[in-house]
């Protein structure tokens, strides 16, 4: 699938590529129609600039809706499954403050040993299986979907809060 960069001004190559890609849906309707965008792209790329921008806006909106839907479902599933399986390490000790022993950890390898070269999803699955976090595996399909929706790794949290993640 052609991935369009939404932010920058389209160059000639972008518009030609868009024209060639746009012929695919059109070709389903009427094969002859499919030739038009391709011809336009070849002869006059600038004519496609506006449809290109409109397509990008629509794609961006679709991405937002899809991400929100995926996240909503993920949160629901995660909450149900997690409550069944998590350790709830967060809750404070009822006896109040106090230093606890820290597990020693020399400079370690990637948290999923032996998984060098494996995809991140496989590493996450290995980690969830080997630790006590099997329930986290249920998030993997949602994470894969978010990854496919080009979730932004540099997205920032609200500025009113310390970045905990």
């Amino acid at each position, binding site marked *: 699938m052609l991935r369009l960069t939404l932010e920058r001004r389209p160059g000639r190559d972008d518009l030609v590529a868009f024209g060639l890609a746009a012929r695919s849906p059109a070709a389903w309707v009427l094969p002859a129609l499919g030739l038009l965008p391709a011809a336009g792209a070849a002869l006059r790329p600038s004519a496609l600039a506006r449809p290109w921008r409109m397509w990008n806006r629509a794609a961006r909106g679709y991405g937002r809706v899809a991400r929100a839907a995926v996240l909503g479902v993920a949160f629901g599933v995660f909450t149900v499954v997690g409550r069944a399986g998590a350790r709830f*390490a967060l809750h404070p000790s009822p006896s109040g*403050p106090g*230093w606890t022993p820290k597990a020693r950890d020399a400079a370690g390898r990637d948290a999923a040993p032996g998984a060098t070269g494996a995809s991140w999803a496989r590493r996450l699955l290995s980690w969830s299986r080997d630790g006590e976090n099997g329930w986290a595996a249920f998030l993997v399909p949602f994470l894969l979907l978010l990854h496919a929706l080009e979730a932004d790794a540099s997205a920032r949290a609200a500025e009113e809060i310390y970045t905990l993640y």
Partner: protein
Amino acid sequence: MTTHILGISAFFHDSAAALLSDGEIVAAAQEERFTRKKHDPGFPSRAIEYCLREAGIGAGDLAAAAFYEQPLVKFERLLETYLAYSPEGFASFRDALPGWAGGKLDLPGRIREELGPEFRGELLFTDHHESHAASAFFPSPFEEAAILTLDAVGEWTTSAIGAGHGSRLALERELRFPHSLGMLYSAFTWYTGFKVNSGEYKLMGLAPYGRPIYRDRILEHVVDVAPDGSLALRMEYFNYCQGRTMTSERFHELFGGPPRRPESRITQKEMDLAASIQAVTEEIVLAAGRHAHEATGLADLAMAGGVALNCVANGRLLRDGPFERVWVQPAAGDAGGALGAALLVWHHALGRPRRVQPRDAQKGSRLGPAFDDTDIGCYLDSVGATYERISGEPELLDRVASLMEEGKVVGWFEGRMEYGPRALGARSIIGDARSPELQRTMNLKIKFREGFRPFAPCVLREHVHEVFETRPEEDWPYMLFVAPVREDRRRALTDEERRRMEDPDLTIRVSVPRSEFPAITHVDLSARIQTVDEERHGRYWRLMKRFHERTGSPVIVNTSFNIRGEPIVCTPDDAYRCFMGTDMDALVLESHLLLKERQPEALRPDREAYKAQFALD
């Protein structure tokens, strides 16, 4: 064959890179200095590129790269937090998860992709607080020392105690999220209207204007503190686990109202809150320090973690605590984790020995890029600047000292850039600390920042005990400790001045001269000191010596070379733009001297446009 190890910190705040060659710190820098985005959390590509260039190597020459924390363990903490508070927390979950799906879960792949296919070394992930501990202990001048790390949170740990001996260290005890001194302090930072992760420093500077009238309320309701310095937060007062703000409605009710709106007027309430949380923080740090001393039996202490940037608490720990000496990593926050990760790999994973340097191995924290006179001259010619190139150092220093004596403010750009949040005489704005007007001028016309904030002194190390209440020739080169001005250097206040000290306008309070060095003396007569010596500071020390010979003052004002919201300048171009966009009178770029009145009018940028480039911090 030389073994090169690259350390990396990234993706949360203050990304950085550091490079060791056979265990020696060759280069270290924060990414923000190159991208000009303050606290830039992005992958530190440019910082890495600089480090490799400084060492004259490529990624293919690296034996290993080390990332400063373990992302999957952090992910676990994130998920456990959401579960503990579910079904609340969806907004926070929605903010966080895309970032992880978009790249944080694939850090090994991302790092290898950024370093390129020529990188064939090992990729390791260290523990966050062990990275801090390593950044503190290994460069310190101590053969053995207790170790205390304090921050908001790493993976799960928020504070840790341990010990270092020779080339090994171990953290034995920890406090775990959500119980965090760093988060407690950040919560008050946010509530008083400052930005988290950059405003903590301002809260510390505001504290001397207030009274700790909320101290008891904090200790009764908000946090339980044990005699050993451990703490447990009452989470009903906080919102950072499940929400998008630091404090909850219950916190607001406890302290009599909603948080102060950023940039609105600071009232006595905020000053008193600042004083109160500072008092609580000092008590916790002191108690934790005592506990570390009892647990280890060691005479010296090495510290790191973001809370270790609280130099008032550090000064209290040194004065009232059980340690003979305390050494704090200058890049004590997450940027320093890059250095710590590399050091952990060298000493622990590779088992290499440590050579303890008697005056520390941090090299004055001058670990960033330098620029030579030829390149600077070419640059200045290219922009049409008017300058003098003064090849003889004595003449240059005479000219600069004379300008300072006249009350001029000078941008000083010399040598390698500092690593860490403080300017230490390589990228500094300097002036005469005896001037009663300088503090106001620098705050409002040069830094464009809050008028209540004091400036810090640089003092010739051989004279530090003559001006401040320190031991003779105290070695504090990193501006991480606060000490009072000596009594014989203070001024008695007139009745009128005492009234001005009660004025609700803090700029009036801070303008009352309280010592012979009004520009650097805070309202409580304290100062955040940097000692300057010839071995570490070279030309900067010689400048101060020249100024001392002319004026009798061993003290000058030193503030970072930037305006509010801007990272400290890195290149001559950054420095020239800042110089032209502010009311600085002169600029020194190595051997080049520029005077503002001689610069072409056409080169002066619109002041507001210059300021608008940088988001307020």
